[in-house]
């Protein structure tokens, strides 16, 4: 990896480790290997959001051309969010794309993602299904996000009703992940979900 990139990542890693957000467990960063090109980040779900209580893992890939190009970040933990792909974890955030500035660091990126969880941008979606739900059935969106957080990120509110519907589909021989995803996409309408799966 280019010298400048390594230098910067090392400094930024230290910055995150020393930051007060780490001190209150809001963000965290770990090394994956010795090359400094791949890192593992974690952010806590912001309070007063459906993601509260969850901890979301992130994959951070530092390109050779860093800091001229932004790091590649995606969610490893599954998450129900308009700007994050519920399938791949890809993030739609301007600063990770064309609005990247060299002044940004790993810490600011993690904090930006945390902010993104708190304030979604449904008009500029990554996941159109989630975005539509966010706009049209906001309550369902909230409970769904809560449910996902509980299941995948260790959040407190498992929605029992949603759980039983997933179990129903699983009983029909459907993979649990698929079942949950399809149910979530169909606003937990069991019939339409079944239709979607089996049609």
């Amino acid at each position: 990896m280019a010298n400048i990139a390594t230098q910067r990542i090392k400094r930024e890693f230290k910055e995150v480790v020393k930051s007060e957000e780490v001190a209150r467990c809001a963000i965290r960063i770990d090394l994956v290997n010795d090359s400094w090109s791949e890192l593992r980040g974690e952010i806590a779900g912001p309070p007063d959001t459906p993601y509260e209580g969850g901890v979301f893992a992130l994959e951070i890939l530092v390109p050779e051309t860093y800091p001229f190009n932004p790091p590649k970040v995606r969610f490893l933990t599954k998450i129900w969010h308009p700007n994050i792909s519920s399938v791949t974890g890809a993030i739609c955030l301007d600063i990770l794309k064309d609005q990247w500035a060299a002044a940004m660091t790993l810490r600011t990126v993690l904090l930006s993602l945390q902010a993104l969880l708190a304030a979604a941008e449904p008009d500029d979606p990554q996941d159109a299904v989630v975005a539509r739900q966010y706009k049209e059935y906001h309550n369902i969106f909230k409970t769904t996000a809560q449910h996902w957080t509980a299941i995948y990120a260790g959040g407190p509110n498992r929605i029992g009703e949603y759980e039983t519907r997933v179990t129903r589909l699983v009983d029909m021989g459907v993979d649990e992940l698929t079942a949950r995803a399809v149910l979530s996409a169909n606003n937990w309408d069991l019939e339409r979900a079944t239709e979607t799966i089996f049609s």
Partner: protein
Amino acid sequence: MMSRGEGGSYATARSMSFNLQDGPANALALSKDNSHVVVAGRNVFKILAIEEDCFVEKVNLRVGKNLNLNYSCNDVVWSILDENLIATGATNGAVVLWNLSKITRAKQEHVFADHQRTVHKVVFHPTDPFMLLSGSQDGTVKCFDLRVREAKLTFKSNSESVRDVQFLPKNNFSFTSVSENGSVQLWDVRKGGERPFLTFTAHSGPVFSCDWHPDLPNTLATGGRDRAIKVWTVTNVATLDHSIATVASVGRIKWRPSRKNHIGSTSLVVDASVCVWDVRRPFVPFAAFEKHKDVATGIIWKNSPHIFLSTSKDCTVWQHVFKDATRPASKAMPQALAVNVRRGEIAQAVTTYQSDSAAPPRFPIFNRKTASLDEQFHMARSLFFTFEAGRLLRDGFRVECAERYTLIGKSPQELCDINAKIALSLNMKSVALVWEITKLFLNTRITEPVPHIETTKVTVPTPNHVSQAPPKPKEDNEDHISDDDQNHSSSELESQDVLGEIASGLHMTQNLFMSAGPTYEFQINQEGPVLPAEAFQHRHEIREGSPPLHLEDCSPRDVDEAIETVAVENRTSYLKFKFVDPVPAFEFSESITKALQFHAKEGDVQTAVCVWLVLAPVVKLPIERRVLEAWCYAYIELLQRNRLYAQAAVVIKHCGVLGHLSQESTSYLICCGKCGKPLTQKAGNFCDKCRKAVARCGVCHMTVTGLMSWCQGCGHGGHIEHLRKWFSGHKECPVGCGHVCHS
């Protein structure tokens, strides 16, 4: 009581002095009829009679053995109305009244011990014989009634110290006081001592003296420590009419009687002369009296515009007569010339003369009098021109030379060659010549030419001769440069002339200047030396007091004498011999040094420094370090003035004597870009306040220690390489401020 002499008239009066012996005098006062003067100081208190051509001591008022401080006077005043009454202000704060009509030796009549501190000034009321004013260091003015023997009124000036008090002329109730805080206050005695009716600030420092014009109403002059005498018109407000700049703090001032614009002044320090100024000419005194050897402390006009008395710290009293005055203005040069080197401008001021008849009489009031010398005052008018040269030819050449000269990086010969060409291309032939000669010298030194004689009659000089004898032409050259006026034989003088021109670089042919390398031709009798005896004798006569003659030791006797014959007999050709390089190991550094010194002396420090720099690696020229430093400083300053910083840096680096300059003069102060706090040397690039490194690269976030580039628009920047790379892919600022730096 005292015999009374007549005050001298102007016609008979003359300058005279009296030595007080007892100590310096602080003040003096004249008696009512101007026949006596009282002089007072710390240790002196005497009354002198003013005779026709001398002072005669009449009374010494310091009597008794245990003198108390009451006798230590700061000021003295003689009553205008009562010729027996004298008042003094003492340094202990006492105002003492003396009555000369007392029969006892001690004439002290009464002591007013009202003031807390030194009394600076006492003054009698011009019309009321019983009223006395005193101004003191304690900041008050007190009004005494001599009948009741006590202070009647106290005026608090609201300042540290009152330095002078004067009644307004032709006004019985008002007086003015000046104080050390620079203000002038006007008081009305009738209104009591609470507030002055007018206060204004006259000087930017203590005011030491003031004087109302005796004839002009409302005209007040003040003199202060700010080295100015100011003339005010005081009505309801004070307006400044004139300001005279003096050379030192003004001690005392006194208007000249019967003259509208003349005022006498003494200095408190430095200047021992008593000056009389025309207020309209603010810088040059109208007349100066330079009799005193120390600063004058008191001045009083003897009821005549032509005679006045003064006392001084040099323990003398002088009577000055105007005809003995010096006129500084007449000595002043009315023309001036100044040169602006930087821009090549010349400013010139010249007087334009007006014929006296054409000049209208300025002051008709005095016109009836016969125009004595001191009346003739007319405004000198000057014209001011500036001349601008498009470019000072010589200076321009120097700058171009400085730019193009190569001083390092090549062998000295090459450098000489290059620089000679540069100088020649700029038509600076003399400088080019210096370079060429230097080069030739260098060549000589390195090639060590083998001497050979073409004529058989002449033997080759032996090596020990060589070592003994310095080469001839060089010596001539030296003599010439050092401008020694010695007696030379005709031939020497001739060669000196030529060499002189060479040294000054006017024109020159190489082989004349060179002692080594070029060929010298001497004509010697081919048949053999035939020496007239007179020649030998003659030579010795000439030699007296002159430097050793040429070639004496380095050639055989016969040749030597033959040459001398030639010299004496005006170059009659007898014999021709030719030799090349008579002195192989010629040490030229001294000649070069002389040449450089000559150039430096002529103001061409550039050539001196450059040649020396070029030679420095190979030859150590016997130049004093001090001289060298002076040259280098001068040249560096010239370069920097012409903004040739790179060239100046080269000189600093390679001159070897000013190495510290490159460390000293490049100090700079760095501040944090965020908070503006200056960075301490210790912390380097770390700002204590922001707890952050300053000057961080916007891309790599490291501190920029080398060249930093930043956007003029948003102020963000960093390493040039990083920014270049960033902007190859982005248009916006790398810091993310949103500024489109790269458009």
